């Protein structure tokens, strides 16, 4: 397997690794280590949960292939200062092209997206779908 320069950079020097704690921190996770891919995002927002709030910091943990780690690291790094929104700042397709990710890894990218959505729902107070259980407050 060969990796794009961007993937290699964010895999080798993944920033924003870890967890956040405190009343303004919220967590979302998706996937499972037993199944091979698991991602968790912790997001710290200015005042929450409500829409329109700003992300102060984001941290992630990821068990997965280099693409999963690189995309998670990139998303966490890009998040600070942005408005907290449930949807990803870029579409899955755009992320796939940006990182040069093979199409057969689309399912793993969707787990990254699910983790992001789960974290942002708790942070913004957006409705949670039945199929995506809300993660406990950190």
């Amino acid at each position, binding site marked *: *397997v060969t*990796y794009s320069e961007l993937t290699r950079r964010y*895999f*080798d020097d*993944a920033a924003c*690794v870890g*967890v956040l704690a405190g009343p303004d921190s919220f967590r979302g996770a998706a996937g499972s*280590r*037993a199944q*091979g*891919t*698991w991602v*968790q995002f912790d997001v710290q927002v200015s005042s929450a949960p409500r829409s329109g709030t700003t992300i102060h910091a984001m941290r992630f*943990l*990821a*068990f*997965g*292939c*280099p693409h999963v*780690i690189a995309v998670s690291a990139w998303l966490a790094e890009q998040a600070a200062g942005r408005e907290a929104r449930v949807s990803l700042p870029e579409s899955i397709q755009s992320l796939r092209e940006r990182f040069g990710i093979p199409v057969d890894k689309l399912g793993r990218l969707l787990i990254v997206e699910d983790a992001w959505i789960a974290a942002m729902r708790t942070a913004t107070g957006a409705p949670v779908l039945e199929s995506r259980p809300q993660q406990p407050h950190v």
Partner: protein
Amino acid sequence: MNCVYLDYAATTPVAPPVAARMAQCLTVEGTFGNPASAGHEYGDAAAQLVEAARAQVAAAVGAKAAEVVWTSGATEANNLAIFGTALYYQESGRHIVTARTEHKSVLDPCRELERRGWRVSYLSPDREGMLDPGQVAGALRPDTVLVSIMHVNNEIGVTQDIAAIAALCAESSAARLHVDAAQSFGKCPVDFGALGVDLLSLSAHKVYGPKGAGALIVSGERGARLAPLQYGGGQERALRSGTVATHQVVGMGEAFALAKGPPPSEIERIALLKERLWEGLRSLRGVLRNGGARAVPHLLNVSFEGVEGESLLAAVRPSIAVSTGSACTSINQEPSYVLRALGRDDRLAESSLRFSIGRFTTVSDVDTAVVAVTRALERLRRIAGT
């Protein structure tokens, strides 16, 4: 390339004396003739080299020169052994016995024969990868025509008791015994005559010879018979038609002559390097050795808990060249079927690395590997929260 090569079980560099001998068979100044051209001295000269190489390979494994059939490698040798035996003896029976941990070049022909109506019994080894010879005996049936068991496993390095299996086969069955010895010659003793097997597959590039060269040893004494798989020219006793690649087989002969019986000091040196590697890795948390202490001296297979396999390989790749399984299957990015057969779950089977040590490996190389794996594990486990 700056990274440390620890993938000698996948392939080895061609030894300089081997390369020199091969080069002498290529150009107009050398022995470039077709060894089947009996009508002129160019052909005669090439044929002499081919036969000399045949004698070298035979001598290295305790066989007779007439028992050596050149192939393009161990995969072709395995295919010739399995299909050739199955087709030749199809009126006698259509049952084959093999193991779940065999190389793909044994398992895939068996699967194909199943599609064509043969029955195959796949034996399960114990958690260290070992077969009890009694398992083989228990699987034999009146219609069993072939037993195919590898000598040294290519992923975990365990050595099967071939002599015991051969004795049981001879006692209780007319089945032919085929042994894939691609990973054993040059690393542990291989004596074709003493083992009592019918067919033995060999590879040149595992022992500092060229890729694209191999052989199937077909026992004359035991009267093994094969149906050919390709026709046209009748070379290799009509078992493998096609012009013999003089430079390739000359290279294989030279490599086998060099690899025969490595000095005890070299075997000990490699064994010590492997133990140094294992000692360095075992101190890390969640490290499991596959194949136990029964593995051949040059090969160490280890599973690492709490990390994902592809990321582990990507993380160590800049520093060391290792494999996540056999080189032939690692491109599939699937968990090792060998490790799964040993009872490892998918995650541990995925997060395994095969380190294989060779002639040019140094203490410094091993220490580099330990540092690279340690750093990768610590970093990936921190990222994974494990």
